[in-house]
């Protein structure tokens, strides 16, 4: 699905990713954990194509194509989805219109016919129910006046609507209470399939009780320093990151 080789990226003068390697196969869920400032969110931003980050080395192959050469919108249309840690508000633009345009672009890119208004509404109904999103929210402006939990559920709802090949969840669990966490995880689990992969970036093991990963990586100082099974997450929860830092040093 995605193959990241020796990826290096900086913001301004500061190098944040220092030769990162990661391979995610179709159908797999990979969790990326690590202490603050290790480069987790940078990885998400670089993969999505944010301009502020400069890629200084390495390569990323996404579905056989050179990801780093693509514009952000092309990456999205090719099936890369980023659930943002801090989803922005777009006043005056209804969630429905926004999604209609987005779904339209993605379908066009895949050579699918545009959805009729009826089919689109049916899809909205089905997918919003999946994350227990109030029908009213679909008609409100994008994220405007949404609570923290509603914003995160809206991200998962958008993901479900766009049916990506690879979804990157950037600290989707941050700021969620236990009920919201369960709902978000439920949405993600419902989307698991042999053709779809996930990269789940998180600080806490808690989320991984609900979204069970195939592989857990520890990112530290811009590199993946340890890889293991879901038990690694439990170990981290128990021991913290210090022992990892020591092994690296």
């Amino acid at each position, binding site marked *: 699905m995605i193959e990241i080789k020796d990826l290096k990226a900086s913001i301004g003068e500061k190098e944040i990713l220092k030769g990162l390697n990661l391979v995610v196969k179709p159908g797999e869920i990979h969790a990326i954990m690590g202490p603050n400032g290790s480069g987790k969110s940078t990885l998400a931003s670089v993969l*999505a*194509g*944010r*301009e502020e980050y400069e890629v200084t080395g390495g390569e990323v192959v996404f579905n056989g194509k050179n990801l780093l050469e693509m*514009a*952000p*919108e092309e*990456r*999205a*249309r090719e099936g890369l*989805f*980023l659930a*943002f840690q801090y*989803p*922005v508000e*777009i*006043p*005056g*633009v209804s969630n429905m*219109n*926004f*999604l209609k*345009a*987005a779904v339209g*672009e*993605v379908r066009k*890119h895949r050579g699918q016919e545009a959805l009729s208004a009826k089919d689109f509404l049916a899809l909205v109904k089905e997918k919003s129910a999946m994350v227990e999103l109030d029908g009213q929210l679909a008609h409100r*402006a994008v994220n405007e006046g949404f609570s923290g939990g509603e914003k995160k559920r809206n991200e998962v709802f*958008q993901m479900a609507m*766009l049916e990506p090949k690879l979804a990157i969840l950037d600290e989707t669990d941050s700021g969620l209470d236990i009920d919201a966490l369960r709902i978000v995880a439920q949405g993600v689990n419902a989307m698991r399939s042999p053709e779809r992969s996930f990269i789940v970036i998180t600080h806490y093991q808690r989320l991984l009780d609900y979204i069970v990963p195939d592989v857990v990586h520890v990112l530290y100082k811009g590199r993946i320093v340890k890889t293991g099974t879901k038990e690694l997450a439990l170990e981290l929860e128990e021991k913290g990151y210090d022992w990892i830092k020591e092994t690296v040093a």
Partner: protein
Amino acid sequence: MEILDEITGKDYEFGFTTNIESEKIPAGLNEEIIRVISAKKNEPSWLLDWRLEAFKIWQGMTEPEWAHVHYTKPDFQAISYYSAPKSKPKYNSLDEIDPEMRKTMDRLGISMDEQKRLNGIAVDFVMDSVSVATSFKEKLGELGIIFCSISEAVQEHGELVRKYLGTVVPRTDNFYAALNSAVFTDGSFCYIPKGVRCPMELSTYFRINEAGTGQFERTLLIADEESYVSYLEGCTAPQRDENQLHAAVVELVAMEKAEIKYSTVQNWYPGDKDGKGGVFNFVTKRGLCDGYKSKISWTQVETGSAVTWKYPSCILKGDYSVGEFYSVAVTNHFQQADTGTKMIHIGRNTHSTIISKGISAGHSNNSYRGLVQINSSAKNARNFSQCDSLLMTDTSGAHTFPYIEVNNSSAQVEHEATTSKIGEDQIFYCLQRGLDEEQAISMIVNGYAKEVLNKLPMEFAVEAQKLLAISLEGSVG
């Protein structure tokens, strides 16, 4: 964002000229020219005298300089004040329209026939100095509604014109209003009789075609007691290297319980991306809420013109009368706009609302200037103003000049203002969902302006949304 430069230079869509024979009087302005204009229009002597007096007033005035705009003042002696398509100036039936003119109308998307009938819009088309066609006159006539060019109204409804002309915008009001009064050539006239709800949108489409001419149209709209009318106005001009002057006057009168909705989509040629050419749009628009519970609302979407100087205003004279102003003004490249409104509260319990959304891109400057005046007689008057500015680039400017004068302690006046820069985060969010940058900007800007766009009649709202997108393509920086 390198694609920006590429698309910033997007051409003005309506910049074509029509090859049509026209009759144009020599450039220059003096009493003789005014007599010629008046004679060409076969005007009664009262109107000629009225014009000549306006000319005298104008001669004693100086061009205003207080607006936040900079330009080379027009040479008023270098302009031709009358230009008319040569072939039959007025058509009896739509089939008689000159084929070239017909093509122009088609390109502008004005069809005088089937399509507009379906949309229920009556259109008056004014090219350069004359009105060339008006549709649906008969149907409107059955209801007693008069909708025609002002020249025709002078001939056929002279008393009505004489009674109201210059009563809302007196000749002494300002430099451009005085000039317009002296030389106005055409425009629309509308009268809605007592108790009649006009069943369709009335619309005037203005087009400057001839080079070296100015356009000075005059619109007069009277809504008698308990009547209602929704009026639309659109404007475009060819792309020319020189600046063209447009100095219009619009007067509205709403009597007891009458309501006028006046919507404008202004898309005069804004000049090229280096600031060359473009229309100087110096316009005086004012409505008088004369009667008890009368209401006037102005909605404008301003995307065109090199320089805009325009303050559609309401005089709230009748008790319980209501004035509204909803505006979206976009400036790009080197455009300059100084626009806003005046709400003059005279009657008791009068209410006014001002919603202004400015959008500045490129190297442009966009100013909101508004006056809320509560006179001592205006007991319990209320005003709410909201002025938002959105900056698309670091090189553009947004300015707000609110003036509030309150002379009655029972008044409630609220003013809110915000300035924001279009968010890279918002754009990136859209890109990440598969939209391209143009779609993203269009969506964000239309969302920002939604409160105002919602006030436009349906057909116009769609047009205005597209226009906003075109005006701002690739303008984030």
